[in-house]
């Protein structure tokens, strides 16, 4: 399952699994954010290409408006996925501690 909600100001917290079945819910939440947003991924266990599509669409929209999407708390597995996808060149990524 996936949970996505507002955290502290400027932060959105996402947890669980961002797969093809859950991506529409994540997209619909992220379509409503503006400015520069940090997506706290420290409890995101899994992402597939459908989830990457959600992040890409959101980043394009925020950059067009002068903001951006930052990714924080990113695990090694997610960093591998972002690296192989070239997303490490499209997003500011802060690794998990």
């Amino acid at each position, binding site marked *: 399952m996936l949970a996505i909600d507002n955290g502290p100001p400027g932060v959105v917290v996402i947890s669980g*699994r961002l*797969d*093809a*079945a859950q991506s529409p819910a994540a997209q619909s939440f992220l379509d409503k954010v503006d400015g520069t947003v940090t997506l706290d991924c420290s409890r995101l*266990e*899994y992402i*597939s*290409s*459908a989830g*990457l*599509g959600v992040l*890409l*669409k959101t*980043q*394009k929209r925020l*950059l067009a408006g002068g903001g951006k999407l930052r990714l924080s708390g990113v695990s090694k*597995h997610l960093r*591998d*996925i972002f690296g*192989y*996808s*070239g997303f490490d*060149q*499209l997003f500011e990524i802060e690794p998990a501690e």
Partner: protein
Amino acid sequence: MTSARTFPRSFDSLPAIFDFTADLFARERIDPQLLPVIDLAIEELFTNMVKYGKGSKADVQIEMTGIEGGVEVTLIDHDVEPFDVTKSPDVDIGLPIEERTPGGLGLHLIRKLLDSIEYDYSRESRRSRITFRKTSAERPGAATAGTRGSNARD
């Protein structure tokens, strides 16, 4: 030992598929670090079958076998046209963001993450069969998976 199950061709099958993989990993004591990669590969291949095999009403069969250091997975899709996943083009990950699209990213990713992936198509039975392997062995540089495809095997 091989475990096999069939799943309706719908994105709604994903939770049951992930339960299936988690059960096998626990039962066969497979390295849990491999689980997200296996789930990712199955999801990308299964959702491709759902998206591009709309003419078929057959369920998709998934077989999984614990092998030394990892797992071998086969997806079998009936009553479909051929689509050789080993021959899809690589994604240009160096493009600027304005030119990036999510298309093709799933197959690109799994070729990077898996040890091997093979495709076989039987024209006689209109059946696609994809088999991949993933083991725990470190893979320096993450060379692209060995691939072998066939579009016309009767």
